[in-house]
């Protein structure tokens, strides 16, 4: 790991100013930054330590919704009683991510900024070509081993999967990312790779995530995060689904539905076509399975990741039907 300057921020303003310096990066938990610095993927000139900042780790949940400070730890949010009861998909996405140790370190703001696990991206010594790392250098993954790569939102420049679980749940419930006074819908915060896969987030130098907020809803209250992976724990999703559902008074007709996919897209993937197809319908297995196929509309595989196209709709359908069982 190349050496860097270390600067401990004592205020949000100081952190923002320091983060605007060329080559400066914020250290919010370190689980991505230090990892990628060791891989030689990121080479910060200055690491701006914001882990000692006060007042950014609050978690507030009331009838209107939840506001979570950017320095709240993943473990604190996952275990928060009101998050569990009002936003179960958010809690489940968090505790099914990473390991207990990493969840104690990683913060919510840092979690949103985590980078892809594409093995070519993470290995600059052996794979110099990576458009995400070095714009214009090519993509080593296309034509390589693609079992973990994305099938939705890919481009000719990049097929790297967005790896996170939390953001998948946040996208389903239209969470807002707070960058100080500026607010961005979480779906817009994550950018498609297109021709510029190096640009991943709608955040400018000198900006810092200060909080995320989620509006309360019946669908968020009755929600789940279903994660399918190669091993039962401590693994990224092969395919996952955040699902929230609200029924009409009959308890069987779908009034509101939220569906987002993880592990299959280049960004957290909202599946609005599935939602629209099922709103107003009775929750019946065949109807749900047919509609869930719409989740992977437009999917493109690169050989070894073809299974995701079959897997993702099944995960979506299982998650929706599971929510129906508890009606």
């Amino acid at each position, binding site marked *: *790991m*190349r*050496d*860097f*300057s*270390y*600067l*401990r921020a004592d205020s949000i303003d100081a952190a923002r100013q320091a983060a605007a310096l060329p080559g400066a990066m914020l*250290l919010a938990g*370190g*689980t991505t930054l*230090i*990892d990628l*610095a*060791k*891989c030689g993927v990121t080479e910060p000139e*200055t*690491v701006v*330590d914001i*882990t*000692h900042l006060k007042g950014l780790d609050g978690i507030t949940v009331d009838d209107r919704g939840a506001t979570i400070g950017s320095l709240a730890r993943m*473990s604190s949010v996952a275990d928060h009683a009101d998050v569990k009861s009002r936003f179960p998909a958010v809690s489940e996405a968090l505790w099914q991510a*990473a*390991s*207990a*140790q*990493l969840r*104690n*370190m990683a913060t919510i703001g840092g979690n949103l900024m985590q980078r892809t696990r594409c093995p070519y991206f993470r290995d600059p010594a052996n794979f110099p070509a990576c458009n995400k790392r070095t714009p214009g250098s090519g993509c080593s993954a296309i034509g390589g081993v693609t079992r973990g790569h994305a099938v939705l939102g890919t481009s000719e420049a990049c097929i790297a999967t967005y790896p996170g679980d939390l953001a998948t749940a946040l996208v389903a419930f239209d969470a807002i990312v707070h960058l100080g006074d500026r607010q961005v819908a979480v779906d817009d915060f994550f950018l498609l790779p297109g021709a510029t896969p190096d640009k991943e987030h709608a955040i400018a130098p000198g900006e810092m995530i200060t909080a995320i907020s989620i509006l309360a809803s019946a669908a968020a209250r009755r929600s789940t995060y279903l994660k399918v992976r190669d091993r*039962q*724990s*401590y693994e990224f999703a092969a395919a996952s689904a955040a699902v929230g559902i609200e029924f009409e008074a009959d308890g069987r007709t779908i009034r509101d539905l939220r569906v987002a996919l993880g592990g299959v897209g280049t960004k957290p993937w909202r599946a609005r076509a599935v939602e629209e197809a099922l709103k107003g319908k009775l929750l019946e297995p065949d109807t749900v399975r047919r509609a869930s196929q719409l989740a992977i509309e437009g999917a493109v595989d690169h050989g070894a990741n073809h299974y995701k196209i079959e897997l993702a709709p099944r995960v979506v359908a299982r998650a929706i039907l599971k929510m129906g069982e508890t009606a």
Partner: protein
Amino acid sequence: MTSKTRIPIKLQINGHRHELEVEPRVTLLDALRDHLGLTGTKKGCDQGQCGACTVHIDGQRVLACLTLAAQAEGRAIRSIEGLADGDGTLHAVQAAFLEQDAFQCGYCTPGQIMSAVACIREGHAGSDDEIREYMAGNLCRCGAYPHIVAAVRQAALEIASSTETAS
């Protein structure tokens, strides 16, 4: 404080205060092992994947390999060396690992034990499934998992009963 050369830091480890000078990039793991001679905390993957370097910061289990030493300033750090009592009496988790033969080569063991102590304290050792889930961040290349689960289960029961006796 900004510097690319060595920086002075003060660390509170197992109740003792240490002053050292390190490059900013030095991790807590390297500071413990190479600067302070506390080699009980192990370097496995050095990449945040294996859990061998698990220590407690302010009572929470974390990975020392992904924590900068400078970042840990002002926090209470506990490593495996600080687990047993001053008179050498082993912590209940250490004793349970011995009793259940919960290791082969022993390299992952300090991390397993530090993780298990926190797992029990968090209340995540209620069943074998829960222990497996919440100990998933500690890999054992020898595959001693069944005995590790048994040791955590045993220690959790002992700690629960001794807490009841005390209260």
